[in-house]
């Protein structure tokens, strides 16, 4: 079982061209928790996700997920530890259908061999059907049935965000990182996202780490919030505590000036 792993980030730092995009960031996310990261644009939120995904190499610090030292793994092995994610600027496979996208979500759990696949051996067919069943559960959960055979390029924005969430869920993660799941959505769609996140947490038991600007959504689903600015942690605590924090208010005021 992958449930029960704690994500521990310690003293994480990375520099881009002499500037600290993330500096000395430490936090823990317990199993089953919903942890939100907030902060003004350019604060380093997405960079933290990219570090955990092993897309960037940190200059210092450590990232532990349960018994795994993530810094010892290449990016494509991270999902095997039980971590899946979405991207701020949706990264779907544009020319493929929704179904094909979701099946790639199963990739980490499928054992492919090019020659067996070329011949479409009976066991390849059986595996396809088995994984297809899992995908179908996620399609039902996120109400994507009517889009199943559409190409991503033909989908409206809101549906794409949804498909990306579904694709991440297809990996059956223990921990899911969501980079601005509600950005660009209208209020009705944002409410839907709120409900789905609750479902994902309760029904699937997935730990959630999310970057989000919509403070209503954060207040609604998050157990704890971390506020950062200029790559540094300003505050970690309950949504209300963080909202009241002077440094946090300062950071947001400073931005709107």
């Amino acid at each position, binding site marked *: 079982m992958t449930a029960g792993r704690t994500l521990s980030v310690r003293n994480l730092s990375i520099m881009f061209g002499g500037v600290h995009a993330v500096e000395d960031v430490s936090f823990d996310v317990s199993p089953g928790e919903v942890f939100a990261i907030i902060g003004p644009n350019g604060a380093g939120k997405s960079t933290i996700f990219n570090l955990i995904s092993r897309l960037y190499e940190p200059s210092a610090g450590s990232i532990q997920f349960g018994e795994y030292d993530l810094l010892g793994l290449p990016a494509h092995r991270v999902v095997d530890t039980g971590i899946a994610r979405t991207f701020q600027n949706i990264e779907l496979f544009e020319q493929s259908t929704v179904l094909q996208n979701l099946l790639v979500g199963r990739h980490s759990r499928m054992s492919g*061999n*090019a020659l067996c696949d*070329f011949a479409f051996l009976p066991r390849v067919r059986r595996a396809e059907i088995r994984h297809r069943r899992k995908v179908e559960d996620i399609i039902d959960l996120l109400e994507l049935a009517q889009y199943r055979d559409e190409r991503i390029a033909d989908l409206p924005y809101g549906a794409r965000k949804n498909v990306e969430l579904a694709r991440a869920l297809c990996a059956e993660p223990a921990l899911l990182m969501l980079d601005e799941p509600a950005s660009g959505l209208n209020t009705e769609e944002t409410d839907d996202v709120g409900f789905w996140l609750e479902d994902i947490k309760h029904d699937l038991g997935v730990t959630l780490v999310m970057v989000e600007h919509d403070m209503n959504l954060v207040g609604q689903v998050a157990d704890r919030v971390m506020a950062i600015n200029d790559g540094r942690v300003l505050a970690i605590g309950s949504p209300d505590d963080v909202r009241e924090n002077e440094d946090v208010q300062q950071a947001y005021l400073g931005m709107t000036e």
Partner: protein
Amino acid sequence: MQVLFKTRYEDDIRFLPKTGEKIRVGLVVAFLLAAPLLLQDYYLGELGLLLVYAIAGIGLMILTGHTGQVSFGHAAFLGIGAYCHAILMSHGVPFSLSVVLTTALSGLIGMALGRSASKMHGFYLAIATLAFLMLVETLLGEWESMTGGYGGLAVPGLKVFGISLASAWQQYYLDLFFTFVVVLGAANLFRTPTGRSFLAVRDSELSARCLGVNVEWAKIQAFGISAAITGLAGVLLAHHLAYLAPDVFSVLESLKLMLMIVVGGLGSIPGAIFGAILVSLLPVALSFLKDVLPPALGQQAGLEPLLFGLIIVIFIVFEPQGIYGRWMKLRFFFETFPYYRKSSFVRQKSYLKTERMR
């Protein structure tokens, strides 16, 4: 418009879910099977050659169209396939074993090329593959003891399982057999993890990685499969040419393969076949052009590459989805007549949905 109601997961795994598609593909297959009864030997040979180029086109399509990795070096794999097979055969290796060995060797060389190129993108990849082609072309010319050098190499007669296949129809059926194998195998790839990982690498390396796709390995595999299939086309091509010379496998030949897949429609297997048909008709068009153009222009030596380049550019600018994409639009036009709107191809199925769903 046709709406498919699915009752089983199997329906998505099947190749041709629509009746119309089944009939069309069935007709093509029937024609191909009956061709020796319908065509004279000369045209049968031309049709066989078309199939060989369709195989090579599918090889390049998997790499460039489906995985997004440009290669201007694929003529090298045709050359490696043709030469390796001819050399093995002339050393007494039976056809069936030679095909397997040649395809495997071509695939391995492709994987090695893919490995060194897996960190490269776009322009650099194009240059690297071009350099590879020049290396192979030079090697085929200089390694005289093995390849016969620039003087050329005769290809032993076609003999399968000890039976001599001297007639045009016999050779044609051999080409057709391998065409079926390759088309089926390529189609299989794209309903399984291997092919999906290729498409994923093409559309977003970033999210492919985060979903567990080893991007470097996917590229190496794509190069390997692509090179193996193109090498197989080289084997069949050798028997059509009967006499090999290094300059057959030149940049122009690579350009021809690229032309096929761009014109046919990147990212689709039928596209490679459409492309092969077009490229086969090109010499006819070319000889026609030479007649109608003023001699100063028509007799120019570089007319062929110029035309190839021009067609590639025109298609990339005006019809990036190629002939296959145009065909899909045309079919949609007839299926929805008289309700067709230009924009509706893109968002066609949205009309089926309620306002809320959109």
